[in-house]
């Protein structure tokens, strides 16, 4: 049992896990993930595609064995951190005692000794004096570097998984002027939306007004990519956009008027028989010399010359027509006026605890600081006695030794 425990907390086991994660990630990056089955069949053949799907390599990062690896890595880091912590706490005192007891292994002349003392003081080494000499120490916080690094990885895995798994995410569209009501009563009104800024540069931005269910809190913000709106536990992103047709319908009998947005094909009718069937909205067209139209199917910006493809249906007769903005189709007492299209945003509304994000970002910061302690704050002790000095450190101190050597050479050159 002890052996198993020792293996689970060992660096060897940690390394094995990391290498497996690395290899699986490599496979996951080379094999297209979460694609349709047909694409795998076409690319690899039926049998191979079946084996790949069964083994989970088509969605490797969500397989049970990938999660198991993460859990084992957490276990390894936890055990290794628990076991290491008391040792880490004692390390400072133990190394100081070891340094104070250390015999000088580098002989120094009186002049060299003075120079070394000055050099250590100039580099802000902490000094402790006793009857036999002085002990200088630096970067003792570095003893915690490795422990904190492992702890931060553990926290990142924990908070990262929670942040990825817990949020409720909804992708919704809202027309300018429209309001969305979320599950807890929070409202999101889209006041305006544009896909190009004043200079014509692409800039997908919506002005949103979010309000709490009780109406006590409100927040207005222009959102765009990189600038989501935070409101309570909600985060609202400018995710995508679309262009909808608009038609004004007037009933001349009673004077009723209404404006409708057209996103999907639909039949606009009062009696269910006569009316206008909306097929599609095109961003532009080219008209040749003979007056024939070629319709454009895509554009990256606003629709410059929009055109509606519609069918007018009356008395069982269907006539296909192209309707341009401000053009009217009148069928009996009903008139349909096609208006300039409206651009609308697609919003991603995410609800997640800000505590989890706080925890994740804290772990990121902790890890960067811990790695700095690990690499650049290496604890070092220099014991200076009457006859010489000794350098002690739990890690390789080749850099310091090289510097000291250079200091010695400097002295030789000077003498």
């Amino acid at each position: 049992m002890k052996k198993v425990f020792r293996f689970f907390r060992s660096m060897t086991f940690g390394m094995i896990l990391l290498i497996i994660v690395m290899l699986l990630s490599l496979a996951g990056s080379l094999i297209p993930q979460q694609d349709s089955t047909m694409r795998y069949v076409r690319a690899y053949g039926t049998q191979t595609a079946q084996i790949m799907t069964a083994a989970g390599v088509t969605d490797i990062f969500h397989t049970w064995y990938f999660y198991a690896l993460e859990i084992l890595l957490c276990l390894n880091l936890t055990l290794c951190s628990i076991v290491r912590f008391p040792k880490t706490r004692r390390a400072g005192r133990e190394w100081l005692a070891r340094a104070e007891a250390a015999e000088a292994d580098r002989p120094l002349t009186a002049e060299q000794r003075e120079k070394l003392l000055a050099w250590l003081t100039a580099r802000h080494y902490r000094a402790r004096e006793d009857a036999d000499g002085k002990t200088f120490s630096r970067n003792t916080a570095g003893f915690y570097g490795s422990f904190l690094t492992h702890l931060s990885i553990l926290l990142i895995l924990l908070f990262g998984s929670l942040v990825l798994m817990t949020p409720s995410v909804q992708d919704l569209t809202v027309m300018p002027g429209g309001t969305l009501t979320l599950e807890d009563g929070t409202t999101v009104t889209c006041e305006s939306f544009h896909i190009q800024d004043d200079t014509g540069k692409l800039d997908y931005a919506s002005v949103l007004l979010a309000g709490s269910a009780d109406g006590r809190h409100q927040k207005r913000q222009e959102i765009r990519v990189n600038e989501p709106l935070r409101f309570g536990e909600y985060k609202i992103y400018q995710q995508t956009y679309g262009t909808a047709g608009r038609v004004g319908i007037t009933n001349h009998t009673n004077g009723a008027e209404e404006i409708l947005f057209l996103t999907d094909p639909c039949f606009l009718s009062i009696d269910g028989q006569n009316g206008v069937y909306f097929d599609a909205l095109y961003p532009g067209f080219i008209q040749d010399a003979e007056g024939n139209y070629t319709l454009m199917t895509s554009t990256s910006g606003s629709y410059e010359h929009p055109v509606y493809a519609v069918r007018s249906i009356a008395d069982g007769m269907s006539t296909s027509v192209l309707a341009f903005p401000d053009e009217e189709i009148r069928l009996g007492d009903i008139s349909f006026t096609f208006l300039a299209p409206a651009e609308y945003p697609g919003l991603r509304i995410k609800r997640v605890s800000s505590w989890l994000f706080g925890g994740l970002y804290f772990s990121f910061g902790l890890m960067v600081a811990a790695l700095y302690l690990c690499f650049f704050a290496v604890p070092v002790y220099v014991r200076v006695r009457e006859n010489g000095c000794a350098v002690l450190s739990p890690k390789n101190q080749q850099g310091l030794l090289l510097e000291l050597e250079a200091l010695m050479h400097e002295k030789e050159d000077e003498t």
Partner: protein
Amino acid sequence: MNLLFFAALIGYFAAAVLQFAGSSMKKEGLRKTARVLLAVSFGLHTAFSVWRGIEARRVPLANQFEFASGFAWATVIIGFVLYRRLKQEWVMTAAMPMAFLILSYAAFQPMEIKDIMPALRSTWFVLHIGSAAFSYAAFAIAGGLGVSYLAQLKKGRSEDDVKMKQMDYMGYRLICLGFLLLTVVIFSGAIWAEQAWSSWWSWDPKETWALITWIFYAVYLHQRMRLKWQGRRMAWLAIIALILVIFTFAGVNLLLPGLHSYAV
């Protein structure tokens, strides 16, 4: 103004050749000329980057050309800082060819200045991409030192030689620096991705390869710190890791489309 770029490229090439010749023939004069030439070329390279930044009205790190140019620039800076600190020729012998090779790669990329896409307009841009340039530069010099180390071994130099130990140690320190910066790259990228795309991690090929590289260097560091691996094995690992870095930097953009495809 592109003339400045090509002048810098030729300057880096000439400096690398002179440095190599100076090191092989042990002629300090040649090496000194190489350093002066590198400094002048670096000045031209800096002037080109500043001009491009002014022209584009942003930090010039937004596409493959600009990033490669920044990567080469960071390599020269790290090379100079190390040389100034250590006064060891082998630093320059490793850094100069790396700077030239990276800038040569940039020369083959489309150079026209384009508008930055909306997703890149973020306060995280400079931290994320700037750290990547310096991280890759540190790894590149470490890989270059690995090559120099193996070449010296082949020439018959002992692993116990002081210079070899220094080279080995400096390679390790550069990897520590690169690893810390790569961690910053991954974290700043995660925070940025959450702001832009609503998810801090999406297993996008660039993210995945950054993680693969990070894990490889983590293994390197553990082998070094705990198992006390040194010398030849570490030199080989630094070279293999550099291949991963190069794939993450260039290969992913060319071969594996994903959320970072705009970086082409």
